[in-house]
């Protein structure tokens, strides 16, 4: 059996990649995907922890997170669509009516 620390590191890697993606990408959808990816990496560590500790709490947490993620997707995408009504692009660099 693999040393479970590597699961954690892997999730850490994915998490970081996701975060980096949020910072560097300009397409709102891709940013959003990166966020989802971050959440997933969290799920991975949770599952690993729950495996380590031998209790099911972590897995329940993951389940909850999935639900939340689903809700987020629904709302988020809706908002993105609603926003395109005002400016056609999903490029976050072009969305700054509110500033300073």
């Amino acid at each position, binding site marked *: *059996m*693999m040393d*479970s*620390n*590597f*699961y954690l*590191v*892997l999730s*850490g*890697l994915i998490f*970081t*990649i*996701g975060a*980096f993606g949020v*910072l*560097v*990408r*300009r*397409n709102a*959808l*891709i940013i*959003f*995907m*990166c966020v*989802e*990816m971050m959440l*997933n990496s969290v*799920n*991975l560590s949770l*599952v690993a922890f*729950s*495996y*380590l*500790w*031998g*209790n*099911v709490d972590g*897995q*329940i947490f*993951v*389940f*909850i997170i*999935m*639900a*939340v*993620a*689903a*809700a*987020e*997707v*629904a*709302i988020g*995408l*809706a908002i*993105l*669509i*609603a926003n*395109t009504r005002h400016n056609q692009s*999903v490029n976050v*660099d072009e969305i700054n009516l509110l500033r300073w």
Partner: protein
Amino acid sequence: MNSLFFIVVGAVALAAALGVLLSRQPVHSALFLMANFGSLAILYVTLDAQFLAAAQVIIYAGGIVILILFVIMLIGHEAGDTPDSRRGWIKIVSALLALLLLAGLSSQLMSSQMTGPADRGLPSGGTPTQIGEALFTRFLLPFEFVAILLLVALIGALIMGRKLVTVEADQED
């Protein structure tokens, strides 16, 4: 064999993640994302989380990504990002910071020696039964709460999605 398996799948997951990050077309990112989710689902199985693996495939790969794809088709289909010179430095800085974060995380993670009941894993695994039981007894309240959350999602989608009717603000109180 286990570790080899882990390495392979993990590598796929990483690659997919990088794919999401790097691919110019949103559609490609979405597909990579799906791959990433899938590979994670496989890893869940190796961690006695069978139910979650299934859920992962259904909810994420099956639901979320598809939804995202639809939306991409709807709005986000123009190719990737306009290359942005203004905040070029931000890319570099964030890369460095990301590396720092990673270093911090992994160093801590590696150095932490786990003192749970040792790497036993779950005695009876994360089977639907197990999860279900936990959900409906110890975690009843969160479970109920999820319902509210989903209601919000529902309403939200409704508000934001629906066509606009012009407001008639009549003055009676």
